[in-house]
């Protein structure tokens, strides 16, 4: 296991994830690296959903302009845009469940080669809850996971089978890690792209899941 290979940093991963988004899409970004994706959409007409009840999420407010009535799903203060609309949580998840959101970009603890995703609890240790993640992975049209390829112990987070409680089964379409881009395909993961300075061999060495 090569702990010294780095590949993309957080911002490069976010920039790569932004390439996945198409003009006109409504997109939900999870907490962490996915949040950074917003910085890289460029000229594309992307509308961000915050699942607590908003389409058209804007950037953080200027200091002194924070509004307790305007937060995102990570409870951070944000702003609105000229396209913004607000709605209640039942409507918000209606559009998620109903497949109106084109893509969700989410973090993960583990992804399995069949597309299973685990990102909501570590039994006995960390129990925060699934929040809206189970709804998102079940409902949006395309699920893109952005995460480090290995955990702090250097172990692969791309597994043959998830060991943690699942968020959804067979839900992940594409995985973007610091080492590259992989798709969930027939029989395992398919390598789509390697990060700068990373070889296919590096990825195979860092991956427990089958690479087809």
């Amino acid at each position, binding site marked *: 296991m090569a702990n010294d290979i780095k590949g993309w940093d957080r911002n490069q991963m976010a920039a790569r994830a932004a390439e996945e988004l198409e003009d006109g899409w409504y997109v939900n970004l999870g907490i962490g690296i996915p949040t950074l994706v917003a910085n890289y959409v460029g000229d594309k007409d992307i509308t961000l959903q915050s699942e607590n009840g908003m389409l058209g999420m804007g950037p953080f407010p200027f200091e002194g302009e924070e509004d307790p009535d305007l937060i995102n799903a990570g*409870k951070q203060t944000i702003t609105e845009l000229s396209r913004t609309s607000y709605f209640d949580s039942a409507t918000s998840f209606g559009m998620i469940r109903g497949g109106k959101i084109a893509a969700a970009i989410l973090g993960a603890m583990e992804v399995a080669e069949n597309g299973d995703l685990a990102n909501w609890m570590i039994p*006995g240790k960390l129990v925060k809850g699934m929040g809206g993640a189970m709804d998102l992975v079940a409902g949006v049209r395309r699920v893109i996971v952005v995460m480090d390829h290995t955990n702090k112990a250097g172990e692969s987070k791309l597994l043959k089978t998830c060991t943690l409680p699942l968020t959804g089964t067979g839900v992940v379409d594409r995985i973007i890690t610091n080492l590259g881009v992989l798709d969930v395909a027939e029989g395992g993961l398919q390598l789509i792209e390697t990060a700068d300075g990373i070889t296919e061999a590096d990825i195979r060495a860092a991956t427990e899941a089958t690479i087809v």
Partner: protein
Amino acid sequence: MKKVYGTAEQALDGLLRDGMLIAAGGFGLSGIPEFLIAAIRDAGTKDLTVASNNAGVDDFGLGVLLQTRQVKKMISSYVGENAEFMRQYLSGELELEFTPQGTLAERMRAGGSGIPGFYTKTGVGTQIAEGKEHKDFDGETYILERGIVADLAIVKAWKADDTGNLIFRKTARNFNPPAAMCGKICVAEVEEIVPRGSLDPDGIHLPGIYVHRLIQGDHEKRIEQRTTRKREEA
């Protein structure tokens, strides 16, 4: 039928009893019924089951009812941000029915809309699905989720007229409408009560039929995560 009451205590008079199920609006600390929560704390009502997406933080929002041990069970999607909540859950002192956020919102709306059960793909193949009825529609598997009907709903809105028509402000709307809908009785606290006719009838977010009692208050509206950018970034 006067719906407007003077204080949260008065508005809850006769509505509280041990062991009841309460649905609460709010997401994080945004749009939470702070005065009604405080009044329930002061009333000392025990063994509550509370359906709410979060449980506030340790000393604000529903967190105060966890501190006083008035809550027996939470129906929530997220316990992060509240150390006492997580501690009571992990130690087994508090029951917790983990419910995905969208399923929770829909369960409230369904319960308030005479729908005792609905099918969803959310949670299929996860521990959320265990023990629930599975059913295939058009070749895909869904699970049956139940509507929630609460004994009492407590919600927070921005403005109300005296007939109980409510409007919310920005993302503070969140779970408040579905929570209000699912209450057999709903008490709302608002920042301002205006005379009937002052609100645009096309702009009412929650019609007064869902709101039985009403108070006005000067809300603290605490911010949980103050994130900003510098002006030069603009």
